[in-house]
């Protein structure tokens, strides 16, 4: 299946989703980006340079781990995990940013901007900018700045400027709006490093392309190391980049079921979730440059979203995923905040893995389905990131008193300035 074989007159469309709903001022910049992407795709040296960079800088190929203990505990299918958490900066976001960094060099631009929710994409972009010598500005909603301070700290140490965004719901979508405003002003020098497979054409194509190495590796590893293809593949879905990255390796293998897991938040009927494809509140709209399913009301105003994981807390979803839902190639499910915390605890105790809260959505669903499946069934889960960044959120969710005391003690130290003596 070639997703990017666009019909004449439908460039950038996946079925009826996608497109380029951009202000006129960006038209020529987008044309320039489309050309650069096309040339890069046609140039085997570009991909080779990208792969070499990821091998020497970001631990690729990432392994697949077999979860023997957890599989035994669940008593059904066998669980395998693609370890994107082992990337530099701790998530699959590194793949996309390094690819876009190479493209930025080709474009001759010297400044990069990005939005970030969880801060993972922001940190990844900041490392890339440091390595390539680009000026770097990261837009981040004030609510996310508050809940992801460690990542803000690292972005700043890496030399990036972090701009808190106070508009709207002060989360990821507002950071994207602000990044777009920067881009319409500074496009001659600036590339917008969008963090997921969303936004105006050609971003969904470009991000999905850079992430496709996850699936290419995974398919090969399952066959060579574990003797057969997986039966089902699970990935969490925020904007959709880690899911598309892994799923692309198996799109043509019809026996492989692909399962995307959205953030069910406090439940699909709670009004506090981020499920665009699995809830009734998602409908087709156009915002932030593209057409897809959005969480919006009947007037087309976007709704507030909620998830325990900042990285899944977003109104839209990749147009490629909307299309593959419609064709039936991908099944979409949701996992709630509570299910995610339970899954995280189980995976930590049984396997010593610490998945990011985002990735724990994929684990939660696989863990739910595994017991009823025959023992020879293989489930492959994408661990899109590591959970270290979530220490504050997880400590709160499991109400760890020792952690609370530690923070209180730390606060007292700061007050009396002991910390600096």
């Amino acid at each position, binding site marked *: 299946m070639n997703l990017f074989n666009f019909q004449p007159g439908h460039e950038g469309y996946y079925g009826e989703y996608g497109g380029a709903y951009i*202000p*006129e001022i960006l*038209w020529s910049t987008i044309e320039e980006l489309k050309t650069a992407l096309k040339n890069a795709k046609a140039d085997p040296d570009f991909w080779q340079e990208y792969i070499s960079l990821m091998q020497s800088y970001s631990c690729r190929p990432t392994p697949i781990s077999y979860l023997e203990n957890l599989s035994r505990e669940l008593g059904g299918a066998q669980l395998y995990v693609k370890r994107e958490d082992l990337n530099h900066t701790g998530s699959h976001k590194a793949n996309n940013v390094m690819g876009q960094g190479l493209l930025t060099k080709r474009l001759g631009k010297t400044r990069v901007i990005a939005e970030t929710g969880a801060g993972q994409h922001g940190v990844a972009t900041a490392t890339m900018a440091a390595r390539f010598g680009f000026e770097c500005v990261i837009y981040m909603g004030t609510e996310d700045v508050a809940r992801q301070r460690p990542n803000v700290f690292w972005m700043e140490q890496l030399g990036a400027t972090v701009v808190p965004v106070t508009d709207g719901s002060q989360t990821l979508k507002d950071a994207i709006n602000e990044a777009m*405003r920067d881009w*319409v002003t500074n496009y001659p020098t600036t590339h917008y490093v969008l963090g997921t497979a969303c936004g105006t054409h050609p971003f969904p194509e470009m991000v999905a392309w850079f992430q496709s190495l996850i699936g290419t590796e995974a398919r090969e590893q399952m066959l060579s190391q574990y003797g057969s293809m997986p039966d089902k593949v699970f990935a969490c879905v925020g904007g959709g980049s880690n899911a598309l990255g892994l799923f692309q390796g198996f799109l043509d293998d019809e026996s492989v079921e692909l399962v995307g897991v959205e953030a069910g938040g406090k439940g699909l009927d709670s009004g506090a979730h981020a499920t665009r494809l699995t809830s009734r509140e998602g*409908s087709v709209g156009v915002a*932030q440059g593209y057409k897809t399913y959005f969480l919006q009301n009947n007037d087309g105003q*976007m709704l507030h979203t909620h998830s325990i994981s900042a990285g899944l807390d977003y109104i839209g979803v990749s147009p490629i995923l909307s299309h593959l839902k419609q064709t039936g190639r991908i099944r979409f499910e949701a996992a709630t905040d509570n299910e995610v915390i339970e899954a995280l605890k189980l995976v930590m105790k049984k396997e010593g893995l610490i998945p990011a809260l985002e990735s724990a959505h994929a684990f939660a669903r696989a863990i739910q389905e595994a017991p009823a499946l025959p023992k020879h069934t293989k489930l492959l889960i994408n661990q899109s990131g590591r959970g270290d960044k979530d220490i504050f959120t997880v400590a709160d969710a499991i109400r760890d008193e020792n952690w609370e005391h530690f923070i209180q003690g730390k606060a007292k130290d700061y007050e009396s300035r002991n910390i600096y003596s």
Partner: protein
Amino acid sequence: MNLETYIRNRLKQKPIGTMTHVIAGYPSFDDNLTALRLMKKYNVDLVEIQMPFSEPTADGPVFVKANQEALKNGITVDHYFDFMKQASQEFDFPILMMGYYNTALKLGHKNFIQRLKNAGGAGFILPDLPLEEQNGLFDTAASNELSPILLVAPTTPDERLNAIGKAANGFVYVVARSGVTGDHTAFNKQFETYIQRCRNAIKLPLAVGFGVSQKKDIEYLTGKADIAIIGTALLRAWEYGKAEALEEFLDGLLGNG
């Protein structure tokens, strides 16, 4: 009367026309009405009424906040068209819907055009809907005698200026510079080359907006453009001192003194 003819007739009486802007429901519909009455008093030629949107990517901070506050006030599409109807009954200047494409998409193209028509609107400006994505909306508009107003930018190549000029109706919105609404524009030689490119490629009247905020901007544009579009500067004046400040500002901008 069609929009282009209206504009050409107005331009027989003055060297340059003006288009002004309000955001529906911000600070309130009553305030909008007060502002529109002042605009009438100063004889503006066209008015855009913006439908607030939750993701106003093309707008600068002043309008972003206004969009947000209007939505917080509970403004819906129904309120919007009711207000437009009221305004088009009271005022004789043509009123344009300004907003983001999602409003039209969610209503459905036919329904959107019908509602706009029933409310007495003359056309629409959707800055996030480029030519290539309009998907039949312009034909639906044309068969209801509504004008799609398209935007061009300094980065638009000549060939595309041509195509946009052909697809648009009424006039073309010439975005004066890069960036979002609200910042100042330095009108210079580069702009002159740009507006000349627009003239060569586009037969419709040209309206210049983004950063037009002072009398000297309008004087500069006279003879180069057909309409000066004033947006953020008006809202800034309102925020500074409500109706009184707005009137003072309009007087400085458009008064005879």
